[in-house]
Every structure is written in C-alpha cells, then in structure tokens.
C-alpha cells in the first residue's frame, strides 16, 4: 500500500524498497559519506541488484546525494537501500561535519578557505 505515508512530503517508489517507507536505522543526510566495507561480510544475505549497484558505487567513499544521482534514483529511495546495507554490515556511514553557528569551527573554515584558494 502506498497511501499511508501522510507525514511525508515525498512519494516514494516502493517497489525497490519492499514497501518500507522509512530508514530502519541511521540518519542519512545528502552529504553523509558512505563506504562499502572491504571485505564484505561473508555470512550476510545475498544483496539484491540495487544493493549491489550501490556497493559498487561506494567502493570509494561517496556522498548519499552522489549515489542517488549516479543511480538516477530519488534520495529517499537510496536512503532506504543504504539503511539495509548499513544494517547488513556492508557499508559504513560517516555523518557530515557538524555546523554550529553559535560556535563556528575556525579551523574548518580556514581549511575550506585554503582549499578554495588552490582552485
């Protein structure tokens, strides 16, 4: 059933996600960095094709938004698939650098500035 998600703003294609509408674990943002574990866990359940595509994409660390763009899937769907992979112990997820406007991180800002200066 696809009509019950009254709290959400987005219609999610449910076929890829087995009807689940929410990540079962972890809070994936657009810029959470995901990385496939190498080696992959031996005893885990065989991943589905969409899961395998994601695992190939995040062999190197990559942001959630990039996974979505490269797979041409909505972010909301990718997050559900990533939650499966995280739960199965196949990927790690690194949250974005926290931004606190009350206490700005001068060291971080300087790093970003230096990096931009090299462009």
């Amino acid at each position, binding site marked *: 059933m696809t009509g019950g998600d*009254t*709290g*959400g*703003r*987005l*219609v*999610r*294609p449910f076929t890829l996600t*087995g009807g689940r509408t929410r990540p079962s*674990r972890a809070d994936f*943002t*657009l*810029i959470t*960095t*995901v*990385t496939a*574990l*190498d080696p992959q*866990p031996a*005893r*885990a*359940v*065989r991943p*589905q094709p969409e899961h395998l595509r994601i695992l190939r994409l995040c062999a*190197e*660390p990559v*942001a959630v*938004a990039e996974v*979505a*763009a*490269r797979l*041409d899937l*909505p*972010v*909301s769907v990718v997050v559900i698939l990533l939650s*499966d992979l*995280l*739960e*199965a*112990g196949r990927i*790690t997820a*690194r949250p*974005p*650098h*926290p*931004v606190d*406007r009350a206490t*700005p991180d*001068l060291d*971080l*800002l*300087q*790093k*970003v*500035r*230096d*990096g*931009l*200066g090299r*462009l």
Partner: protein
Amino acid sequence: MAGSDRAAPAPTAPASPAAPEAVKILIAGGFGVGKTTMVGSVSEIAPLRTEEPLTAAGLDVDDLAGIEEKRDTTVALDFGRISIGRELVLYLFGTPGQQRFWFMWNDLAIGALGAVVLVDVRRPESSFAAIDFFERRGIPFVVGVNGFHGRHPYPAEEIREALALPEHVKVLLCDARERASSRDVLIALIDQLIDAAASAAAS
C-alpha cells in the same frame, strides 16, 4: 525476503578507505539566475542532479498554486563537489529555483556553512525570496551579482542599496561561468564566516 535476516549484528569497524567528512554551501537565487552554472564552474565533477518525486500532500495550501494539475512533479537538485584535501569535501547545492519548493530549502539549509545568493541585475526581485529565507533563519550568506554576459551595469553598492542588505553581507560582482570568479565568491563567503567567528570570539 532478503533483509529480514538479522542474525549478523552490524559491525562497528571503521570505513575501509578513510572516509572524508563533508560540508556544504548552498547556491540560491531565483529561477534561471545561474546557480547550476556557478556549481559547474567550480565543481571538480560535472554537476549531478537528483530528482525527488513530489505530491501536494505535504505542502501547505498556499503552495499549491500552479501545481494542482501536475501529479508527477519532481524537485530537481543540482550539485557539485570540491575536494579539500583527503579528509574534507565541500559540496555545493543549487537550491530549487521555484519558490513553491521553499520547503526543500529548509532541509538543505540544515548543516550548511552558509549560502551564496545569486542575483540577476535584470530581475533582482527573483532573488528576494532567497535573501529573505537566509536572513530570517540567520544563515550567513553573500550576494553574487551575476552579470549577463559578464557585464555589470551597476556598482555593487548600488545593488546593496536596492536589495536593502545589511552592511556585513558582502556583495560581489561576478560571472558564474568563470571558475575564478565563482571561486572568489565562495572565498568571500568563507571570509565573512571567519570574520564573524573572530568578532564573536573577541566580544
């Protein structure tokens, strides 16, 4: 069904290749003002796009104008990437231009270092909503005046006045097509953040 086997607990091992931490800056402004152009001119990858399907279910009634007939609306988000060394990656997100997608801006703004509001001198009013958005939420921003074909008929101060911007908000004349010009706008934003942090620490 795959995925229902919970026998193996998720390991807490660190990521195999060291995963960089990410930060983001928003590139905002009215529809067609050059946001994706700016993202593309500084990004190390060709700008990527994600599309999110959308229904009116979660929108306030006021936001329905113009989309009630369109059942399959999507919100597109263009973004690019700049690697800052091995441990840090800066993502640039172009905000959806149409005002009715303002709610996406809320999600996007969470955790952003700040924003660039691009202004088209031929129709500055198309960027008013973006300026309001960041001002009201206390999100730091600079204004980049994107010259049509790189031409700038008005000096920056005149544009500041026209937009009624406070003194601490930088206004830069730029050409979003040029890498160096877009980079300088981003650097101006970071400098503004550094200045604000320094003066906050001093007081």
